[in-house]
């Protein structure tokens, strides 16, 4: 018991040190892009964390996490542009994401596995192509140009997307939000709700037999996950300066799900890793293209992601992070490990 506790605080310590290092590095560069990319990395990490909750913990597959991010981002942009304080708008945005999450969770009460995945594909595409783009919803999506968000202040600190310092402030705030969310999510894992979540993941039938209220905990799982995704979305307009449909498209939803599975869908640190990867690697590819004088497009990134995902699912079902953890665990003598269930979820 005590060894478990020390192991835990060691992990927490390591995580905080990693966060601290990541927090400091961008402040050395007075460069808008590097800081904006750092902030975007945290936003992506939050979005992928939402997949960890929903898929890794509760076992529900969702291919519309980008939609949850988007609805919160659009709502924030919309309310801000109609004169509301940014932070109040952001809170409402997150609340809206929570609501949409619960709404999408409703069909999940009757559907499982791939059928639910199909529904989420439909949700993602209809928001992507209609509600986020169509002129009929211009009051919400800001029309074709989307919403512009210049700056906001909190306790006298300035947040914006134009000055490097303003972006750095958003980055730090985001990092704090991520740290708190991540710790909460880790704690949920072993809490009463977490045990019920995992019971649902392992077998809905068994969970119901044990007296788990399926309706309540499935909807809670969806709502929580959408809320975390909504957090990512609420900061998006501030960091980027604009909200439009493209960053919340179906393909981003696929990327979120793909990255979560690739890095290890049951692990919180994997989400952080995936966020950094998702934000910096495309940038890196473009820069490599510039030095070598070749035209390296963003699409290479998706080819790489897709190929890695295929190899990973076949060879290392628990994701990169999970596999490394497992192998390190095997090196340590004498601690029998409980057999892990197959990755993603059991249907």
């Amino acid at each position, binding site marked *: 018991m005590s060894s478990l506790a020390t192991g835990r605080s060691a992990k927490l310590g390591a995580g905080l040190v990693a966060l601290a290092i990541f927090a400091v590095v961008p402040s050395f560069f007075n460069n808008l892009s590097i800081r904006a990319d750092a902030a975007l990395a945290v936003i992506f990490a939050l979005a992928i964390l939402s997949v960890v909750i929903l898929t890794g913990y509760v076992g529900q597959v969702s291919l519309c996490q980008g939609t949850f991010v988007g609805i919160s981002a659009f709502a924030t942009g919309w309310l801000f542009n109609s004169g509301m304080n940014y932070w109040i708008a952001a809170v409402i945005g997150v609340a809206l994401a929570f609501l949409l999450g619960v709404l999408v969770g409703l069909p999940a009460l009757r559907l499982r596995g791939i059928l639910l995945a199909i529904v989420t594909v439909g949700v993602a595409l209809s928001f992507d192509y209609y509600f986020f783009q169509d002129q009929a919803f211009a009051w919400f999506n800001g029309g074709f140009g989307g919403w512009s968000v210049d700056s906001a202040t909190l306790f006298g600190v300035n947040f914006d997307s134009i000055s490097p310092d303003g972006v750095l402030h958003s980055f730090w705030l985001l990092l704090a939000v991520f740290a708190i969310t991540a710790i909460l999510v880790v704690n949920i894992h072993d809490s009463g709700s977490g045990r019920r979540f995992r019971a649902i993941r392992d077998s809905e039938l068994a969970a119901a037999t044990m007296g788990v209220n399926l309706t309540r905990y499935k909807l809670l799982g969806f709502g929580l996950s959408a809320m975390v995704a909504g957090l990512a979305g609420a900061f998006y307009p501030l960091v980027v*300066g604009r909200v439009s449909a493209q960053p919340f498209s179906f393909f981003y939803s696929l990327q979120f799900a793909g990255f979560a599975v690739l890095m290890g869908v049951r692990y919180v640190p994997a989400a952080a890793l995936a966020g950094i990867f998702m934000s910096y690697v495309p940038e890196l590819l473009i820069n490599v293209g510039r030095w070598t004088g070749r035209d390296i497009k963003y699409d290479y990134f998706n080819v790489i992601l897709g190929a890695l995902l295929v190899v990973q699912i076949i060879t290392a079902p628990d994701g990169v992070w999970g596999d490394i953890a497992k192998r390190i665990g095997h090196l340590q003598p004498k601690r029998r490990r409980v057999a892990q269930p197959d990755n993603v979820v059991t249907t």
Partner: protein
Amino acid sequence: MIGSNIVRDRVAVAFITLSVAATVVGGGAVAVSYNQRGASSGTAGATTDNGTATDQPATTDTATPGAAGTGTAGNSGTGGSSTTTSGGGSGSTSTRGLSTSQADSGVTGDKITVGGIFDETGAVDSTVERDTVRAYFAKINAQGGVNGRKLELIDCDSRYDSTAATQCANQMISNKVLSIVGWTAPKGENEQVQRLAHAGIPIIGGLGTPEEFNSPLSFPVSVPFTRYGQGIAERASELGIKHPAIVVINDVPWVATVLQSLLDALHAKGIKETHVDKASATQGSYDQDVLQLRHQNDGNGCASSDPTKDCPDGLIAALDPFSYSKLFASMDGSNWHTQIIGGGMDKGTSQHDYADQVENANSLVPFISPYDNTNNPTVADYLSTVNKYYPGKQYKALDVYTQHSWTAAMIFVEAVKRAGKNINRATLVDALNSIKNFDTGWSKPISYAPGNHDPNHCFMWTKHDGKTYDAGGSWHTISDWKCF
């Protein structure tokens, strides 16, 4: 089965090892990449300590050592003199607060870095506009550059999206480019004018979206899209069209203003539209659009209730070059031939796809049409230069929008020449504002002055002859300049 498990395990180990290695290498490369970027925009070390360098660029002292460090002896001298210019200023209001530091303006001893935002992937392909600017720069560089400095274009892909365009604008600000030249991002550029202007980056060229005529730092070269409406209305009335149908590309943010100006101009000429169809660059077939364009009657001007009869007596189209192809294919599919007036139908690579619908179509161009003016020196220079550096597909894709980009590059180089050795954003803007009656060779002369700019007011009518592209059909200029 056991064998395959061992294989799988080995692959897993290799996979994990590779990912760890890739992460380490990638992380290192990211760090290097940012250092590289800093170096390319001047002197990262000298300027990054000054947190307000990009925000409040009026302070100039940090830059001088940068110019001295990187430049040749002669250049470092002028680098030093840049401070004096900034102190005195030139008296023009538009340059107040602009960066007078060469390091912060993308200028080093032997290189000038400018930026461009183009839709390189996504629904609209603007790579040919990018390559047109690159071709012009390559030509200038082959002649030794401007005042001993080579020109370099940093491009960013705005993906036919306004958020991506915003991120591109941030990248341009981070890269400290001297200016934006010849950008083409239909869905994003209108929104980014103020952001770039706020960061003190002058903008030269652009499609002609409304906001580009609304900033003292924006130097458009083309006719605003809002003025196209007057030109089209004039042409429609000349052709005797009384109740046309209208189809516009509806997914660019500035379309409402442009459409309203078109409708106002038509109504002023007593022309009533039968139907306005709003199309999207990403939509599929135009079959249903054509059906509506042909038969819908919104209650104005047309009283046909016979389904075999067409309601409108002409079609006014404001689409992108690619959407025209789809529209024309659908018009062919329903066997509808009518008088067409539209802008931007002259893209070389699309002419074959336009098939017979383009025959006798009417268009209007703010620059002399390259189709029948190959003797014009600017046209000849433009065609031969692009063909030299970007032959094949890009050369064939030239159209009125690449003419914008070429003109923007021309004016930029003229301004850089005028600004002399002591080039920075402030002196560039002063030089641009000093341009009077600059003869582009293929448009009315262009002049700028401090304040907002709107230099181009004139069109020429062009008309397609009665032959398809494959039969040697082509566009012909049929009027002199018509100014509005």
